[in-house]
């Protein structure tokens, strides 16, 4: 018996092992995101929405939109919506604000990540302007009102009467310096 074919088999298998690991960590999560987007599940909202000129407003129907603001992990900012609930007509553009304050003694950068419940409403919740499209910089002790303008699509399924929009605020102060362009969280908007 010679050792060469054995080594060849073993190396091929080890290569497969590494490939499958990379597949699990780097391919499956984005693949799942793509799948959820196609199937319209998971509650992720899309990026910036261009309002069309002839946006039809359905004044017959009223949809409640509720806002939730959460800090991730040890994020110390004060973060809350200025209004917890608004009633809107589908198709009408609505502006709301979120309040944030950096109570620490250092300058910080934050990133808000949105999620919509119920998940099947997510494709019908359009943001024309959102603070979550950018990073938020607040100096020590600074506070700010951050804007959000959105439109609920008139195509929204008839059984959805309440939409909950949740923002979770992440501390990305330390990530910022490393790699500004390919900010991993920004791609999740």
């Amino acid at each position, binding site marked *: 018996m010679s050792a060469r074919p054995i080594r060849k088999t073993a190396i091929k*298998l080890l290569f497969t092992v590494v490939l499958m690991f990379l597949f699990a960590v780097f391919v499956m999560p984005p693949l799942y995101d793509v799948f959820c987007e196609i199937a319209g599940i998971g509650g992720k909202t899309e990026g910036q929405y261009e309002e069309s000129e002839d946006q039809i407003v359905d004044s017959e129907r009223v949809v409640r939109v509720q806002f939730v603001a959460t800090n*991730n992990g040890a994020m110390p900012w004060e973060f809350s919506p200025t209004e917890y609930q608004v009633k809107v007509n589908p198709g009408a553009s609505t502006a709301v604000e979120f309040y944030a304050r950096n109570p620490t003694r250092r300058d910080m950068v934050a990133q808000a990540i949105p999620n919509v419940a119920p998940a099947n409403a997510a494709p019908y919740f359009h943001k024309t302007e959102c603070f979550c499209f950018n990073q938020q910089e607040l100096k020590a002790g600074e506070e700010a009102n951050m804007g959000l303008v959105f439109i609920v699509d008139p195509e929204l399924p008839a059984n959805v009467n309440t939409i909950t929009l949740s923002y979770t605020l992440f501390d990305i102060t330390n990530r910022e310096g490393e790699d500004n362009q390919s900010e991993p969280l920004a791609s999740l908007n």
Partner: protein
Amino acid sequence: MAHGPAKGIGRWLYATNHKDIGTMYLWFSFAMFILGGAFAMIIRAELFAPGMQLIKPEFFNQMTTMHGLIMVFGAIMPAFVGLANWLIPMQIGAPDMALPRMNNLSFWILPFGFSLLAATLFMEGGAPNFGWTFYAPLSTTYAPPTVNFFIFGVHIIGASSIMGSINIIATVLNLRAPGMTLMKMPLFVWTWLITAFLLVAVMPVLAGAVTMMLMDINFGTSFFDAAGGGDPVLFQHVFWFFGHPEVYIIILPAFGVISAIIPTFSRKPLFGYSSMVYATSAIAFLSFIVWAHHMYTVGMPLAGELYFMYATMLIAVPTGVKVFNWIATMFGGAISYETPMLFSIAFVILFTIGGFTGLMLAMAPADIQYHDSYFVVAHFHYVMVAGAVFSMSAAVYYWLPKWTGKMYSEAMGKTHFWLAFIGFNVTFFPQHFLGLAGMPRRYADYALQFTEWNMVSTVGAFIYGAAQILFLYNVIRTIVAGTPAPEEKTWEGAEGLEWTLPSPPPFHSFSTPPEVK
């Protein structure tokens, strides 16, 4: 060339001989079986009566988690790797495994992996308590701090499995005796070859899943955290992409064992050898495309539910082919009922029951009712215990005379079988009723109407546990004071290269390849 094993502890620490490593795997897995069994006894003792008697609910959760992890990764998987180490070189006419040093490493990291896991029981915060499927966020956001030990333990155990399977594939593909073509290999070798490919494909996915958990817990990523743009359901998809092939990793070698034993005691060649090979391959392939049948209740689109339902039911076809072949092998044979055959027949009957309850659970609309109930517990114990563990018991009785050169006590073996058979069914058959009546799994307490069947189940569990002590005693007694086994063939109907060797086989067998007709 003809030298024996080294003396003293060095023989085991530096072991590169496939028989020595196989022996260590088998003993290690039995120790884990006893440990996991002890956890099961604690669970069943607590569930004997409603209300909290013996332990706290927090500890109960740790027990269910550790029982599952230890039994799956510590008892069943290493037991079959040990069997593969002992048998594959002898069955294909090879002198040893292809990568003997890696073989040593893959065994010796196992005790460290399980020490990490078991040590969590003595740590602040207690052992993992999120169930053996460790769904996020239970295992990330809400996990005890010991979860990191669990993660590294799984990494080590996974590395061991991967090395073991690379070794098996390299051995089977490169070291077969001249004339031993793939379609002449014993089915145990075939099923292990396919199992090893499954392991190489999915153990890295498990490693990936726990690595993502590690990142979420310690390094601020959000793979499984909806708040940060991730999704806990993603965890379930990744886990079951590993987890479903994993259940076939556990059961395929058992199929191989049964396919060796039933022809021996029926004194007929195995019916439909090639259809067995194709059925095994088909099961392995299907195992990759059915994972989400474990998660019908997460809110999949209807098309997804239907696809996973039909694909899952398709698995019944190759599995049915196998069961049919075993029965056809027995049909018209001159059957004798020694202990290994008793376990094998029980395997065929009980595994088929487990398969049928699996079909019930495969139906998405029905599963929404059965999901996470004791019906599921009954189902997977019928395939894991009556499947994998019964076949493992059969294998030990069948090959023990070959390994040791000594005969076990047939009377004690049969007593073990009947205690195990009765104990097992008394434990798990009533759990079908409990599940259908609505008792959820993984709770330390239950509603009063479930009391009677839980009492019955607990009594059965202790009978089954006692049977294993008898098994241990029988094996030790055989090694220490067994009567010598017949020089070559212990069983008159046994076929295969391993039976051409003396019993016990020499330390190095097949240094020159045997002739294969």
